[in-house]
């Protein structure tokens, strides 16, 4: 392999993929090094320009006044929910679709969990005139309908994946299978910092716009760096994006908040982990092309994960994040479904920001650890919650949350929808 990047993060990372994909991965590694790392042909300049003009960057770093008062801490929101498409996903999708253009590819494929990455890829595909096909688990299709429509409206094909439990893990496997057949003219736009090298490093570099901006915005607002940065972690792309430019600053604590789901315990017999906390409870293993932390049974069979938020519902995590957790640089923490749901309502009511359920996990951690995160805290608002409204209405109705608005009203108005 060429020299600049070896794709290893400590013991993690690597390229565990079928041979048919290796030439495509080598070609991609070469393109990553030339265009992304060396800005050949002004690639990164064009990427940044399009992220401004099409994406709406920079996103604000907003002081959250009510939360700050509640926690007696300066809380700042990095508003990736205001990025075009409503989530941080466009940073990566646009970067990769543009790269595919530079590489002369003719077609884009992608997997999606919550539908946010698929939506962002469909938008970037339309914007850059690239046909795209999105693989999505059928369970996720059912719980993320608005995003399925958005993808279709942007002109993407949406192909349901029916194997397994029909969530992100199966969608990734299926997209890899498509790629194995079509590598010669197709680029696979992976949706997080997962998969074989160079994906984890490349996706991080595109997402690093988040912390690049947040860092200078924080300097401007407070004249210093924050004491802590919080981000939810599924695969970990908004997480590494929010952390990257702070990793070398030892004074900044980094918290990756995973989905504790309904429980942290694991049912080996059934092969089910009722959570998606691969950093907190997973073991080292090889999944989807990389060595990383994985939810698996004693034999190494991958478990079915769970989270109320589709975007965190994944049995693996990016190798770089796993490494930073092992070395102690990043704290892996988790909150359960109930706490995330409460945090969803709290942020909506206190700040007028409806967060994605994924994002709500970070706010739930803030609520639980209000006192010990320092005087200035940045929370990455990875996405907005519009896509989750149906789920939230259902899940709230099942629980007794004092903070939630009266859901009976929703049931009456939204009767048809439910």
């Amino acid at each position, binding site marked *: 392999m060429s020299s600049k990047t070896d794709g290893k993060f400590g013991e993690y990372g690597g390229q565990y993929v079928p*041979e*048919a994909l290796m030439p495509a991965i080598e070609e991609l590694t070469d393109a990553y090094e030339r265009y992304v790392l060396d800005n050949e042909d002004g690639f990164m300049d064009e990427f940044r320009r399009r992220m401004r003009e099409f994406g709406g960057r920079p996103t604000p770093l907003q002081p959250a006044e009510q939360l700050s008062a509640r926690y007696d801490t300066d809380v700042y929101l990095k508003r990736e929910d205001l990025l075009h498409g409503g989530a941080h996903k466009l940073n990566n999708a646009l970067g990769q679709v543009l790269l595919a253009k530079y590489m002369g590819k003719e077609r884009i494929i992608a997997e999606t969990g919550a539908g946010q990455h698929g939506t962002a890829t469909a938008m970037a595909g339309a914007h850059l005139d690239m046909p795209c096909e999105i693989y999505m688990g059928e369970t996720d299709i059912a719980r993320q309908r608005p995003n399925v429509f958005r993808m279709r409206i942007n002109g993407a094909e949406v192909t349901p994946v029916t194997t397994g439990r029909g969530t992100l893990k199966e969608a990734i496997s299926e997209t890899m299978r498509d790629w194995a057949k079509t590598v010669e003219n197709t680029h696979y736009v992976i949706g997080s910092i997962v998969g074989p090298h160079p994906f984890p490093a490349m996706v991080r570099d595109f997402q690093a716009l988040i912390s690049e901006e947040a860092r200078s915005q924080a300097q401007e607002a407070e004249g210093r760096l924050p004491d802590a940065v919080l981000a939810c972690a599924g695969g970990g792309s908004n997480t590494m994006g929010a952390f990257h430019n702070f990793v070398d600053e030892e004074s900044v604590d980094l918290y990756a908040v995973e989905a504790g789901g309904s429980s942290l315990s694991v049912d080996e017999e059934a092969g089910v982990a009722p959570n998606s906390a691969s950093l907190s409870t997973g073991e080292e293993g090889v999944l989807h092309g990389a060595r990383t932390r994985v939810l698996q049974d004693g*034999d190494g*069979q991958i478990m079915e994960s769970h989270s109320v938020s589709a975007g965190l519902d994944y049995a693996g995590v990016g190798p770089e994040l796993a490494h930073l957790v092992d070395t102690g640089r990043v704290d892996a923490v988790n909150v359960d479904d109930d706490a995330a749901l409460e945090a969803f309502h709290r942020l909506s009511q206190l700040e007028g920001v409806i967060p994605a359920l994924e994002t709500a996990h970070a706010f739930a951690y803030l609520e639980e650890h209000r006192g010990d995160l320092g005087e200035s805290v940045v929370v990455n608002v990875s996405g907005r919650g519009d896509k989750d409204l149906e789920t939230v209405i259902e899940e709230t109705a099942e629980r007794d949350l004092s903070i939630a608005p009266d859901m009976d009203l929703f049931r009456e108005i939204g009767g048809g929808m439910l």
Partner: protein
Amino acid sequence: MTLSDAFDEPAFVPYLVAGDPDFGSSLSYVEALERGGADVIELGLPFSEPIAEGPTIQEGIVRALSAGMATERYFEFVERLDVDVPIVCMTYYNLIYQYTGTSGDAGGAAGERGPRPFVERAAGAGIAGLVVPDLPPEEASPLRAACDEFGLDLVFIVAPTTRGDRLDRMREQVSGYVYVQARLGTTGARDDVSEQTDASLERVGDWEVPKAVGFGIKTGEHAERIVAAGADGVIVGSALVDIVAEGVAEDRDPADVAAELAAKAEELKAGALAGAKQRTPPEHT
């Protein structure tokens, strides 16, 4: 007999998923393949994320896993098999990497992870070699070392897209035979036999190990053409897993399914032998 000796005459190399659709039937299916003329048997140890597999084999894997197939059980399966031909274990790297042996096992540091305990156990069960579709040569050194230590062969898959340095790296590490992937994509039976086969065979033409071609071979006629084109063997998976799947769908007596597998094996083996007769004799210079 070593793995490469099994290719002295054109070899038929069938693949089945161990434990598909259940332990007992699967044992009889594998044995039927040997009766039908198999020279080497590739036996899948099912993994939950088989990214190199098409729908037919994926479904076989799901059937086997739901019937309780697991790593230790797989080794018991191999030990129970009454066959004389070499068995090659085909699986994904995570299962090899996670295996720590049965608890209380003598030898081997307790809880030792990595390829060594798996390879040691495989050798003990009488397995002759391994094929690991998600392990490219760049990541294979620990497994290669363990295979050398315990006398197993490590088979690599050469894809239609494999060229240059990558071919050299594989050539250095491969043993037993080289698995020549006939066309791009995942496994699955096809009606056409790809033209990419000739080109792929040519790229490994001067390798010392036997060349076995797989992906999409379905009939005796395919086998004949592939061997005529210069292959030392044909690997057939999905066309056989299809027979197992039909047996499940139609609720057939496992003995009938086994008989059909044996008949299919005979057809494929006969095709391979017929192909050898059509080969252009080597040119003399």
